[in-house]
């Protein structure tokens, strides 16, 4: 009998502090390794409307496609492999599948196909895989990861045939699928799209202005200036429109802004939702750096990027799962002197971020 009610599942928070000018900074790889981004939210203090160049970035986020009821073996289609996967930079993730109960699929830009399958589906599929790292006592979830660019997975090869027949005749896996590609990669998806019911979606941009916002006095100098958890809590509270104006004796909530604090007269919060590409996020970061180079009242900008909760992979193609929240996100705080603070957070079913 376990009586310990105080234990909670593990969570990880990695705090990085560096400068964009430091050659050892890994920000671009950290951004690019999180392949499936669901939401980007930006908080600009002392700003009432987004400057035009930032606005342009928001509106030029790549659109993505939703394919309804697509059989997964279509991803192995010879033509699709040639025109899209081998070209690289194709992002695909199954939609409306929950990783803790359904089978989830992700197509990574490096040509890896990752399937997170429950036990029965895995036994039906008949392709080598590994039991999930996060199984508890009994193995009930397996991860199959194949490199589509590998020579054994070339069309006609044995591994290819096995996976194809497995997906086509044994495990007829069909899901709604979100697909996107980076235009620079030269991939074309039209051929695949034409065969199924599909729709194109623009990332959904919403922005609103906040007034008289109390915010912590952020200094770029030291990491200890503000406890990372209370800082993330405050950013989250602003993002969720939760009021921080509470007293400690309040019955409902005692959430307050971390000390020391200041008040900004207005702030702009912009968020973008959809299947967003890391390249676009990277572009946005570059634009924010330009934006910060002009002198301003408040000298920092906060950017938060959420990964897909139900994606089978998080950073670097590492396995991901949902235990309670399935969170995999990072929050970037950029200061005017090109230094930044990066907080990478993962939940219980995740490995340590890079």
């Amino acid at each position: 009998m376990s009586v310990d009610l105080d234990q909670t599942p593990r969570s990880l928070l990695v705090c990085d502090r560096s400068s964009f000018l430091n050659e050892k900074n890994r920000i671009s790889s950290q951004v690019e390794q999180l392949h499936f981004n669901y939401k980007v939210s930006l908080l600009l203090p002392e700003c009432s409307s987004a400057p035009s160049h930032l606005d342009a970035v928001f509106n030029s986020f790549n659109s993505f496609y939703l394919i309804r009821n697509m059989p997964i073996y279509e991803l192995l289609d010879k033509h699709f492999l040639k025109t899209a996967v081998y070209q690289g930079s194709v992002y695909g993730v199954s939609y409306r599948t929950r990783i803790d109960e359904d089978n989830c699929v992700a197509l990574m830009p490096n040509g890896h196909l990752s399937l997170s399958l429950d036990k029965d589906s895995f036994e039906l599929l008949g392709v080598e895989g590994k039991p999930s790292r996060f199984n508890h006592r009994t193995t009930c979830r397996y991860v199959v990861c194949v490199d589509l660019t590998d020579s054994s997975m070339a069309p006609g090869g044995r591994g290819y045939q096995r996976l194809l027949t497995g997906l086509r005749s044994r495990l007829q896996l069909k899901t709604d699928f979100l697909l996107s590609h980076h235009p620079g990669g030269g991939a074309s998806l039209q051929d695949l799209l034409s065969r199924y019911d599909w729709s194109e979606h623009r990332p959904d941009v919403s922005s609103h202005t906040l007034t008289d916002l109390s915010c912590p006095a952020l200094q770029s100098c030291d990491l200890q200036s503000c406890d990372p958890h209370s800082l993330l809590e405050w950013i989250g509270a602003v993002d969720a429109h939760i009021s921080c104006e509470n007293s400690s004796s309040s019955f409902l909530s005692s959430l307050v802004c971390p000390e020391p604090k200041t008040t900004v007269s207005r702030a702009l919060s912009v968020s973008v939702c959809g299947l967003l590409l890391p390249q676009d996020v990277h572009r946005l970061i570059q634009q924010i750096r330009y934006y910060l180079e002009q002198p301003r009242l408040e000298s920092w900008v906060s950017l938060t990027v959420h990964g897909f909760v139900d994606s089978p992979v998080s950073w670097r193609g590492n396995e991901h799962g949902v235990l309670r929240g399935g969170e995999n996100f990072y929050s970037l705080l950029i200061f005017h002197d090109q230094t930044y603070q990066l907080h990478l957070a993962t939940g219980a079913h995740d490995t340590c971020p890079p």
Partner: protein
Amino acid sequence: MDEALVQVAIPRDLVDFLRVEPQTNSKAQAFTKAFLRNSTQQQSQLKVQSMLSHKAVILGYSRPKKDKSRRNSKKAKGLNARQKRAMKIFQIKPEHQRYELFLPLHELWRQYITDLCSGLKSTSSPQFIQQKLLKADFHGAIITVVRSKCPSYVGITGILVQEFKHVFKIITKEDKLKVIPKRNSVFAVEINGFVSHIYGSKFEQRASERSAKKFKVRGTIDL
């Protein structure tokens, strides 16, 4: 009557003739007793003596000869497992491992199943067919591995040529002989459109023993 005759007094005429005098009753009794004791004692002693000196006594126990002969005949009939293995009786020679060679066996098996299930019409109930199939012999059936804990077994199809307690040996269309463990796999058997699934883990018996076994009904079965 004889006893009475012995004890009767000697008649008068004989007394004179034999010149013996009848003794009194008590004396006669004492004499007879003594006489009998002497004579019998000597006799029994003699007998024991002769028995010990001449008679052969068997101390050990030997089986009847009939038993021994039966064991011999049984031994002559079959081979033990080691001999069978050494002679490779149950191994199919590589030159015989051809799919076409076993197609007639499959045809025979189809007939057998059709007979067993009394015609195998589409109207017959699945429960009935399943009951029959449980007790049936599967040599010659085309079986497919549909699910397995080991992914590389999944998808193998072929004619079942040998069934052992724990494995199936099947021959595939590519003329390959495959040995597949029954445990942790599910097999599909197809006859005239009926597809039945066999849970290998519950099927771990020899074909001959299975016909006598009772299968239990269970709600759910994992591999």
